[in-house]
């Protein structure tokens, strides 16, 4: 049960942590990867807003 509930949140959390750390390790492409990875929480929130049931 918890596996299903936490699959997407865990993926977003791991992507966020990866983004937070990769930008510390270098500039240039490190930063670009960080922007993409750290955008995942926002993408999820916007996606949920677009498909909300009205």
């Amino acid at each position, binding site marked *: *049960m*918890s596996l299903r*509930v*936490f*699959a*997407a*949140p865990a993926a*977003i*959390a*791991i992507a*966020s*942590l990866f983004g*937070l750390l990769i*930008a*510390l*390790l*270098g*500039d240039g492409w*490190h*930063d670009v990867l*960080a*922007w993409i990875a*750290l*955008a*995942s*929480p*926002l993408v*999820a*929130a916007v*996606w*949920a*807003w677009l*498909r*909300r*049931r*009205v």
Partner: protein
Amino acid sequence: MSPATLRKWSLIHTWTSLVCTLFLFMLCLTGLPLIFHDEIDAALNPEAWTPARAGGELLSLDAILARALAERPQEVPLFMSFDEHRPVVNVTTGPSPDAPAAAMHFASYDRTSGAPVPSADRGEAVMHFLLQLHTDMFLGLPGMLFLGAMGLLFVLAVVSGVVLYAPFMRRLRFGTVRAHRSARLQWLDWHNLTGIVALAWMLVVGLTGTINTLADPITELWKRRELADLVAAHRDAGVVLERASLEAAVAAAVAAAPDRVLQFVAFPGGAFSTARHYAIFLHGATPLTSHLLTPALVDAATGELAGVREMPWYFQALALSRPLHFGDYGGLPLKLLWAALTAITLVVLGSGLYLWVVRRGSAVSDPAARIALATDA
């Protein structure tokens, strides 16, 4: 999860959140403009500065220091720092070596001429006010430690929120927002969604913010443990009256750590050095190590290098907590993401507060019963 366990976590989540929510609102709202501190400063102070003699010979650090002290004859030097992309030296002075930050005076000098660099201070008063509110609410160390405690409560609230996320989402798909149902259900969904997507970022910024509130005790601990031998060796020597050349001291430090970059000098008697030494702080040359400091200590009376001291883990943790809290290490897009995630955190806080308010007026107070009402799709 048994109803009793659920009730326990629900209580933890409610009370840790309630206690810190007001302060978290303040921290988010003051933090938003602080993310863009550099951009705001640059926009409000667009005048370009050029050195008097571009490419010309640089004055010695001793000459700059003498110039700065001539401007503030009653004061002692505390720090000297160096701009990265222009020949500018910044000198911080104060009425005594242990002067509090509020009593310090900061001035910048052109290293090619010794002339003062006009301060680009339009908007600085507002930004400084926001920074003080964000750091210690104008209460000094007690204020910092109090906000650190609020940070810890926030982390507890986030963790307990994750625990509660599972039972609430048991029968719902990830990202469900029931906008066709009651306002309470809709805001519950937004609270769960925004809280869980921003989870990692909120934990990192909350924890690093808490570590930053410990900056003063960590610096004091470092000084006591790592500089103890130097302090003990000169216990009876008293204050250094006749200082050896600063220029030579900095040159010796840079020569002793050739793969590092000069960042700032802490003068004898302050929080970052002993009563007898110049502490010359250098940072690494790679993106990661540029956040990590290493001090070289030079006897301020004799000019003799006392050694390069590697920083202990707790000081490095503090050093890395700064970029990870400020979001200033990955260009403007990272800052924009920081602002967006702060906005998401405000939604988490606001929806959480709303849910608590409407629940107080509701007859259903048992968490298990609330979940039963809230989990149908």
